[in-house]
């Protein structure tokens, strides 16, 4: 029974336990859930970016067949509070009211205005068309800089400003002083377009009320069932212990489901009002308006250095588009990036300011990487430009400034203590795989020949902060919750093991990885482990899944809980084997007495003996189950080196990624296949920002890229072969030595691609191309540079 478990599970490329049902869709997606008497909710949304609502009449909808109820924002206002922002980043932040449904003013296209509840989805959608709404248009607020001028129209007129907050971070020597002594300074402005997260599964909500007890079960496609439960209690006034939140199988999030959404509160409010279960599922184009967006920033960056390449300091001035409202962590996203601009480099001065700005667009919030891709983009772009300015190879410039592997732990100028890393090793490996020198020679040859197709090489050496988060750090950042995680392990009498986790997977493969971790510590077969997650009734404690935290914090909690189980089981085994605890060996799930190998008990036998409790040590609490909560001491810091070669057709502006090499150091690896998949997906999304995706608004504030036909998500055929390798420098801040991998590819790849395009076109006079680097933008950049 235990022989097969003697092979270590951690480090094996185990096929994922959850894949068969997830891939076939024969599983508990929220939209697959049905209950007796289920009604369907549809939401009428503002067609305008900004307007006063002068009249809403839902009564014509009630005349439509199959309609049970219809409500305006005013109808639901009583008993429904403002949606929460859990990260008021400064003391004087402007916190606007955010009703789940607009009452007197709409502030972005897609703001909910009214809803219908009907017997089926068709009737609900049809009835929306009967609702009458009168709007008095107000001016949209779309430009981040213009929004801050005195005479700008206001998104929230009661607040008197569109400036949400100003958040500074100044460390080391003053930047003015290093600027004075610097031999070279460069200033650049970079733009981060808005992105639409595009999880494969749209959002969906089902609420089932239990009239007799006043309890509500909220099924929702979320990354954060535990946080949703707390917040729904606050927003709806339903006592927290009467709300059960279930995140069934969830089909991707990328941060877009790290949110507390109005539709969750509306479904609860409606179910409470009419006493019937309701379901709401967004359509893709509805989601483009109603599910939060990512990025949306203007970065002014200045770097100061000496001629030999030594960096002296960095100044960053950000304008961050909040959108119309502050959602769960909207204001904090650029702050997560604030600590990452200095990246892997040593310098004497860092001066960062972020200004949050309200606009009449869909709110922004976390999107894969959340603040860190933006930071990495800015620093890695300007490092390439600085290398050109100094006549240095971009890799050499980095080498002269990065933290040496012997210098860890190292406290960065931004105040983070990087526990471990080896930038030299990752870079050397990447350069070798990429054949850097050969590509440089080809590039020079094409330039010499004046080839219409140029070649460029982009470099991106990144680090990130993962494993959110030490709770005390979160306190200092004014975040309203902690960063701990919970796990408990139940040893069932039949030998099966239930691992209950507070993390909430939505595609990551926690079921497989947690099984591997538990199987190793407990010495039980991988197949005997089941992982329970995403249900506040089954897993009452958790801080959920985002920020590459699940393995680093949640996986560590599983590991520690399993060790507690073994410690308890050892007491029982010692009693049963009539030996002292010290005389027991534990290996491959078997307790044996030193020197008498035949005297043995498996941990699963111990579990059964504990269940019967017929023969336990005196005073022994009759369980070997264990729980562990962990609050990390530090973040984890994955890093790596990404190299990208892009061919640019100067005649059409078309770009073609010819090769992409990344060497990531994510510490110890639990499942290499899952790591590989995370890197591939991350690269795809990072490359998508560089080349393809953009939420485009017109001058009136309408989302023009409103469907997948107009928002260009690349598929496998649009992406190159990736060469993905790793170095392995274990994290020292957790017993597994793991660092997290969910965001690495997205963070590193965007600057690698854009650096490559600019590198290809620099000989033609091109300095910058705004993302996404569409063919027409590339073509125009070439043409304008040559004019």
């Amino acid at each position, binding site marked *: 029974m235990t022989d097969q478990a003697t092979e270590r599970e951690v480090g094996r490329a185990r096929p994922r336990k959850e894949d068969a049902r997830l891939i076939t869709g024969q599983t508990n997606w929220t939209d697959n859930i049905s209950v007796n008497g289920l009604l369907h909710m549809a939401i009428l949304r503002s067609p305008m970016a900004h307007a006063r609502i002068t009249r809403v009449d839902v009564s014509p909808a009630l005349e439509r067949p199959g309609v049970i109820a219809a409500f305006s924002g005013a109808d639901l206002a009583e008993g429904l509070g403002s949606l929460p922002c859990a990260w008021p980043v400064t003391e004087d932040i402007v916190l606007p009211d955010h009703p789940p449904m607009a009452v007197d003013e709409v502030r972005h296209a897609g703001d909910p205005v009214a809803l219908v509840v009907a017997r089926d*989805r*068709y009737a609900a*959608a*049809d009835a929306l068309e009967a609702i009458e709404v009168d709007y008095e248009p107000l001016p949209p607020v779309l430009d981040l800089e213009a929004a801050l001028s005195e005479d700008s129209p206001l998104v929230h007129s009661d607040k008197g400003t569109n400036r949400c907050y100003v958040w500074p971070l100044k460390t080391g020597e003053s930047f003015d002083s290093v600027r004075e002594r610097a031999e070279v300074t460069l200033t650049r402005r970079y733009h981060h377009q808005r992105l639409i997260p595009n999880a494969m599964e749209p959002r969906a909500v089902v609420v089932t009320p239990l009239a007799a007890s006043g309890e509500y079960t909220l099924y929702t496609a979320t990354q954060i069932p535990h946080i949703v439960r707390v917040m729904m209690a606050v927003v709806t006034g339903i006592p927290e212990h009467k709300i059960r939140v279930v995140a069934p199988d969830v089909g991707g999030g990328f941060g877009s489901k790290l949110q507390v959404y109005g539709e969750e509160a509306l479904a609860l409010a409606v179910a409470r009002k009419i006493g019937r279960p309701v379901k709401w599922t967004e*359509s893709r*184009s509805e989601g483009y308006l109603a599910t939060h967006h990512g990025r949306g920033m203007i970065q002014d960056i200045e770097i100061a250095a000496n001629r030999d390449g030594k960096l002296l300091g960095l100044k960053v001035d950000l304008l961050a588009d909040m959108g119309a409202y502050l959602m769960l962590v909207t204001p904090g996203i650029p702050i997560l990036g604030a600590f990452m601009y200095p990246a892997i480099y040593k310098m004497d001065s860092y001066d960062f300011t972020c200004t949050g700005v309200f606009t009449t667009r869909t709110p922004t919030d976390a999107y894969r990487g959340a603040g860190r891709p933006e930071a990495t983009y800015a620093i890695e772009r300007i490092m390439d430009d600085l290398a050109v300015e100094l006549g240095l190879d971009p890799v050499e410039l980095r080498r002269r400034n990065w933290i040496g592997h012997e210098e860890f732990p190292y406290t960065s100028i931004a105040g983070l203590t990087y526990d471990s890393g080896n930038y030299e090793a990752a870079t050397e490996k990447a350069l070798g795989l990429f054949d850097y020198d050969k590509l440089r020679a080809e590039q020079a040859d094409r330039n010499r020949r004046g080839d219409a197709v140029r070649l460029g090489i982009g470099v991106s050496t990144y680090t990130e902060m993962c494993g959110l988060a030490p709770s005390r750090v979160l306190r200092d950042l004014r975040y309203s919750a902690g960063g701990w995680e919970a796990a408990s392990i139940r040893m069932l009498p039949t030998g099966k093991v239930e691992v209950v986790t507070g993390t909430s997977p939505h595609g990551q493969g926690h079921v497989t990885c947690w099984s591997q971790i538990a199987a190793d510590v407990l010495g039980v077969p991988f197949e005997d482990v089941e992982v329970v997650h995403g249900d506040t009734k089954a897993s009452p404690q958790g801080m959920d899944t985002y920020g590459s935290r699940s393995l680093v914090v949640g996986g560590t909690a599983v590991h520690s809980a399993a060790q507690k189980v073994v410690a308890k089981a050892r007491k029982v085994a010692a009693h049963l084997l009539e030996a002292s605890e010290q005389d027991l060996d534990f290996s491959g799930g078997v307790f044996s007495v030193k020197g008498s190998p035949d005297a043995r008990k498996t941990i699963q036998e111990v579990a059964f003996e504990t269940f019967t409790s017929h023969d336990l040590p005196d005073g022994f609490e009759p369980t070997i189950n264990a729980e562990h909560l962990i609050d990390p001491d530090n973040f984890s810091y994955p890093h790596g080196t990404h190299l990208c070669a892009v061919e640019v057709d100067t*005649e*059409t502006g*078309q770009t073609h990624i010819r090769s992409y090499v990344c060497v990531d150091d994510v510490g110890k690896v639990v499942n290499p296949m899952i790591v590989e998949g995370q890197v591939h997906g991350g690269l795809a999304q990072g490359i998508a920002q560089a080349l*393809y995706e953009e939420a*485009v608004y017109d001058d009136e504030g309408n989302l*023009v*890229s409103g*469907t997948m*036909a*107009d928002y*260009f*998500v*690349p*598929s496998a*055929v*649009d992406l190159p072969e990736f060469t993905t390798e790793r170095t392995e420098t274990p994290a020292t801040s957790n017993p597994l030595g793991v660092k997290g991998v969910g965001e690495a590819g997205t963070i590193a790849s965007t600057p690698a691609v854009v650096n490559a395009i600019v590198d290809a076109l620099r000989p033609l006079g091109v300095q910058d191309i705004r993302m996404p680097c*569409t*063919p*027409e933008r590339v*073509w*125009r950049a070439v043409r304008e540079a040559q004019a």
Partner: protein
Amino acid sequence: MIPPAFDYARPDSVDEAVRTLAGAGEEAKVLAGGQSLLPLLRLRLAFPELVVDVGRIPELRGVREDGDTLVIGAMTTHHDVIHDPLVRRHAALLASATATVADPAVRHRGTLGGSLAHADPAADLPGVVLALDGELVAQGPGGRRTIPAREFFVDYLQTALAPDELLVEVRLPKADGWGFHYEKFHRVAQAYAIVGVAALVRRDDGHIAEARVGLTNMGSTPLRAAAAEAALIGAGDAESVARATEAAAEGTHPSQDMSASVEYREHLARVLTRRAVLAAAGMG
């Protein structure tokens, strides 16, 4: 998909389909492979009272020869067009262009006739059939009539089909011995072409004797690059092809959208026409 309500008819024969359409007046929409109509219904941009599904009429499927003409049933799927030996032999341009349409799922459902009757100038196949000098056969209450491709595409999403007419066949003169190439320029594989160029070239003694160039997404209908076609006659090398194709955007009226300005589309039309003709002529 949550479309507005509509009535649904699924005739088993062309005659029945035409009768159904005739009885419905202007408010009926023909459903072929559904790759254009269903998104419109889903987004509630179309509100037909009746959807007439012609996707299961056997006589509308398949490819046959008729002398020097290739006859393709309107409901032949893209996938079947790509793999049909007759198409590959006599209208290889169509097979190779069809292979660039969207993705495998779309190509298994979408049909040649459906794409042509939808008449989206950004779609690949209208320009290709125009370049092939195709003819479209419509059947109405009064019988069949044949419409040259040049007259079939009337305006954006508008064809010469009457509301009670059904597109039943596409007739293509065999292009044996012609060089061909479809040059598609798009943002991602699943996206519409920003510009597409379908080129057919007949060479005589190393020089271009005849060239036909169909343009995708360069106006409210698919277009022929007539000026370039005329200028290409006699071209014998890459330089002369380049000179001739400078005229490729003449007479076009492209629109501006998120992916391209008018100026950029005109530029692309010239570059892509040159590339397509060079490839078709084997001069690339």
